[in-house]
């Protein structure tokens, strides 16, 4: 009997396991993981391609070709009538390019009387040499009559050729540099006079029609003014609004309506804020066109919803027990908010603010309508003077016909990306250091 039982137990197939689709479910999970990895890889690939194309096109813009020339500040050229003591305008309007031209001719061993050669020499050096040499003379008039080595910028086409960005194998009449200029370039290069130097001009010059003398100076100042204005206006208004909505206002239809509207505003396309700025600030209130102050106001309107939403989330994340404890110890509601809730919510608020600012820093569309997409060469002394912004300068350079602006555009993108990265990293660091979990 027992044998039989034993026998049946031994020979009987184990009870069929209920099919719970384990294999299928594991396979589905593996597939899902694969999709996830693929999605990340595609995203990363796009990012790498974008960064690589910007970096490869843009890194050259941080160097600029100059020729080191012994400039003789000849009194006969600068001030032929010797009037500079009485008329300071003489030093401003003097024919400085002629000085650079002469020095270059001497360097290349060209006879000044050889007119055809001298005409060809034109266009080798940048017209910016006028301002460059004028600044030297105006800052130190004693230099007149002496000789000094000055690094003169070369024209943009030669700069591109020097950096190897112009295909010299195409026929001469189809490119912007002549064979003669290339020959001179190689000669100066061999002598070591012509070389690439760090391009400080990219950070200090204003807008210019010549690529070699155009820079981000005005744009950086304009962006800085706007960021300060946005910070000064949007942060207090946004934080006050959120504190009221989150801590004081009674839940009602009305506050619900406000909440829905704030969320909607955060999603409104930025150009709409530009239209609003044009209508209200420029046309109705009569504020100046192209001013970074108006730009700052427009960007404030754009950033406010972001800051309010972030602040409200940060306030709501503070546990109610802290509120109860503060109130229980006899603090007023205002004391509770400012002495307990706000300090605890501060990291979240700051993170939201920085991300809002970073978004505002990258905006062009709202600035278009208030006239900030413009050619501005002078530094803005106050926020009420015409200025541009970093992304605007990128846009303006992207539309230029000359090839040399392409590298400047990419260079400007690199600079803007560095600023944005710095802001975002600050936000992350702040969050890591001060965020508290309950």
């Amino acid at each position, binding site marked *: 009997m027992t044998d039989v039982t034993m026998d049946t137990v031994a020979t009987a197939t184990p009870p069929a396991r209920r099919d719970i689709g384990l294999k299928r479910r594991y396979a589905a999970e593996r597939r899902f993981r694969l999709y996830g990895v693929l999605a990340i890889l595609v995203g990363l690939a796009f990012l790498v391609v974008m960064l690589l194309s910007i970096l490869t096109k843009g890194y050259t813009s941080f160097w600029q070709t100059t020729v080191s020339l012994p400039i003789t500040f000849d009194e006969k050229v600068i001030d032929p009538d010797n009037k500079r003591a009485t008329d300071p*305008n003489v030093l*401003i*309007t003097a024919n400085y390019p002629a000085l650079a031209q002469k020095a270059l001719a001497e360097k290349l061993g060209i006879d000044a009387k050889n007119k055809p050669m001298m005409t060809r020499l034109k266009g080798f050096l940048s017209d910016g040499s*006028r*301002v460059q040499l004028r600044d030297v003379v105006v800052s130190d008039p004693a230099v007149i009559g002496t000789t000094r080595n000055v690094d003169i910028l070369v024209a943009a086409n030669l700069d591109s050729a020097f950096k190897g960005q*112009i*295909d010299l194998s*195409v026929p001469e*009449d*189809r*490119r*912007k540099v002549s064979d003669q200029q290339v020959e001179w370039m190689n000669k100066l290069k061999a002598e070591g006079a012509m070389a690439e130097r760090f391009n400080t001009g990219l950070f200090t010059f*204003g*807008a*210019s*029609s*010549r690529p070699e003398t155009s820079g981000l100076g005005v744009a950086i100042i304009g962006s800085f003014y706007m960021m300060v*204005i946005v910070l*000064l*206006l949007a*942060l*207090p*208004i946004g934080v006050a609004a959120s504190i009221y909505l989150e801590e004081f206002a009674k839940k009602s239809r009305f506050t619900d309506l406000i909440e829905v509207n704030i969320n909607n505003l955060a999603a409104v396309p930025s150009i709409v804020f530009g239209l609003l700025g044009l209508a209200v600030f*420029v*046309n109705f209130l*009569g*504020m*100046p*066109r*192209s*001013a970074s*102050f108006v730009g700052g106001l427009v960007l404030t309107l754009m950033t406010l919803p972001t800051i309010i939403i972030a602040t409200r989330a940060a306030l709501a994340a503070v546990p109610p027990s802290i509120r109860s404890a503060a109130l229980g110890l006899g603090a007023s509601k205002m004391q509770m908010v*400012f002495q307990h809730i706000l300090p605890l919510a501060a990291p979240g608020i700051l993170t939201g603010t920085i991300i809002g600012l970073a978004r505002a820093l990258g905006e062009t569309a709202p600035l*278009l309508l208030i*006239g900030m*997409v*413009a*050619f*501005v*060469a*002078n530094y803005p002394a*106050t926020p*009420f*003077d*015409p200025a541009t912004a970093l992304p605007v300068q990128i846009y303006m350079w*992207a*539309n*230029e*016909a*000359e*090839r040399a602006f392409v590298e400047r555009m990419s260079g400007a993108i690199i600079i803007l990306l560095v600023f944005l990265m710095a802001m975002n990293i600050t936000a992350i660091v702040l969050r890591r250091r001060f965020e508290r979990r309950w």
Partner: protein
Amino acid sequence: MKKALLTASAAAFALAASAGYAAARDQIQVAGSSTVLPYAKIVAEQFGETFSNFKTPVVESGGSGAGIKEFCKGVGENTIDIANSSRQIKKDEVKSCQDAGVKDIQEVKIGYDGIVFATDVKGPDWALTPEDVYKALAAKVVVDGKLVDNPNTKWNQVNPKLPDWDIAAYIPGEKHGTREVFEEKLLIAGCKKLGGVEAGKAGGLDDKAAEAACKAVRKDGKAVDIDGDYTETLARIDSNKTGVGVFGLAFYENNADKLKVATVSGITPSTETIAKGEYPVSRPLFFYVKKAHLGVVPGLKEYVDFFLDDQMVGPEGPLAEYGLVAAPEAERKAQREAFDSGKSL
């Protein structure tokens, strides 16, 4: 920290309120055509460098129409002083200007610009006529004396001498001043030569409608409106080597190593052929000055004088070097005299 922030923002408000911006504007403001923009920039820059007592003017782009609209907003500090335009101001624009209080407008013609067709530099030579352009790009073409929907899909169907390329043309969008010249000098001219106006009238259209039918561009994707600048057109040609783009002469000359220019009616576009009036597709460039701002905005008169000086708009000047076709000497002189006499529209 909090208090400091609050005080600072209060201060910023106060600054805004306290007429910080009411101080007289000391910088000329210019807006308008993106074709005129590079020339205006060159002049503005040199103006700022030459006249140390004036600031460099601020130049916005945005298109002729947008510039004139901004110009016609009224008179005062927060309105622009000069509108650049790649076409003549229209009657209704003058009227809207006057309704807004801009009574006196001075017109200044700075020179001429050519519109060229260009293909990728490695492509074959192109010789176009207005008729070819009309037959390739118009919405309706003449077949047997009737206007029918454009059946052409390849350039060699339009003209057997043209290559066997699918028609893909990148033409200036409607907001560009260039578009008007394109329509007038190519589409309408070609249409008239082929009897399109008559065909339209025979089909029951009146004069105006027949002309409008001539310049209507096909909408089936073979003619692409480019609303951006010429760099966008260049990028399109880069990615589609059998595309044909419309450029300004100056832009083409700056990118001659990437583009090959087409002749129109057998004439190669160049500053010489345009100055002589041989090349058919050219147009004058203008800017408009608000007379009420002369003498109020510092440097405005000097800027216009400087612009019109031969060292700027002359055939040897930097504008000509960039690609502007200088007006004949008599015309330049007439422009200077007209501006000095204060003649307004």
